[in-house]
């Protein structure tokens, strides 16, 4: 039974993913982005605590254009991971598990993450 070849169809351009699946895959993608950001974050923390000059160079690094663009991406990643993560925690305790509610909440967390990121970029950068 186990060795019987099954039909496999994995063309991602033809599979229409529901919003729940999109929110889920974005949660994973944003998680990988945040994983990659860990050493850069530690480096900036180290620099900022090392010396006066280090502190100032962190300020100038964070004001540079490429880093601003990168931090916009990371901010979105963090917000999506956070909001979609709260949704998963609620799903774990059986809140919002019906299909229609899950679809609405998938839209809700994805759009909220986008909106909050834009707001934070507007306020902080």
């Amino acid at each position, binding site marked *: 039974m186990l060795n019987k070849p099954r039909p496999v169809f994995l063309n991602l351009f033809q599979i229409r993913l529901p919003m729940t699946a999109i929110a889920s895959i974005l949660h*994973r993608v944003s*998680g*990988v982005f945040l994983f990659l950001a*860990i050493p850069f974050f*530690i480096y900036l923390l180290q620099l900022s*605590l090392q010396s*006066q000059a280090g*502190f*100032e160079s962190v300020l100038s690094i964070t004001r540079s254009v490429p880093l601003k663009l990168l931090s916009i991406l990371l901010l979105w990643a963090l917000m999506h991971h956070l909001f979609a993560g709260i949704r998963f*925690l609620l799903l774990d305790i059986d809140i919002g598990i019906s299909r229609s509610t899950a679809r609405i909440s998938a839209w809700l967390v994805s759009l909220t993450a986008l909106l909050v990121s834009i707001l934070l970029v507007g306020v902080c950068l």
Partner: protein
Amino acid sequence: MKGVTTGLNAWLLQRVSAIYLLLFIVTMPVLLAFLDVSSYLAWKNLMANPFMAVTWVLFFVSIISHAWVGIRDVVIDYVHSFKVRIIVLVILALWLVAMMIWVMQVLLMSQGGAV
């Protein structure tokens, strides 16, 4: 493999760390906005405060545990060859241990406060 690398323990670790990370990420920026972090001295002295030190150490413990369970799930989903999977997981585990040692060094070295 036993412990945090399997089943319920990993699931639980993921959720517990998620809750701490959530609380930290929401409250720390607000806290920093109300405190003085405008100069090097103020920032360094703030981070030398035991309360800040403990919350930041717990933050990195949480983020690295959380990252481990997450990246492990990703690897298990996409790397099907058992041999390659183990090699990739060992590299990632060592990477995260290195991150942990590095950040603990950074946080503990700043405990003396600014002179």
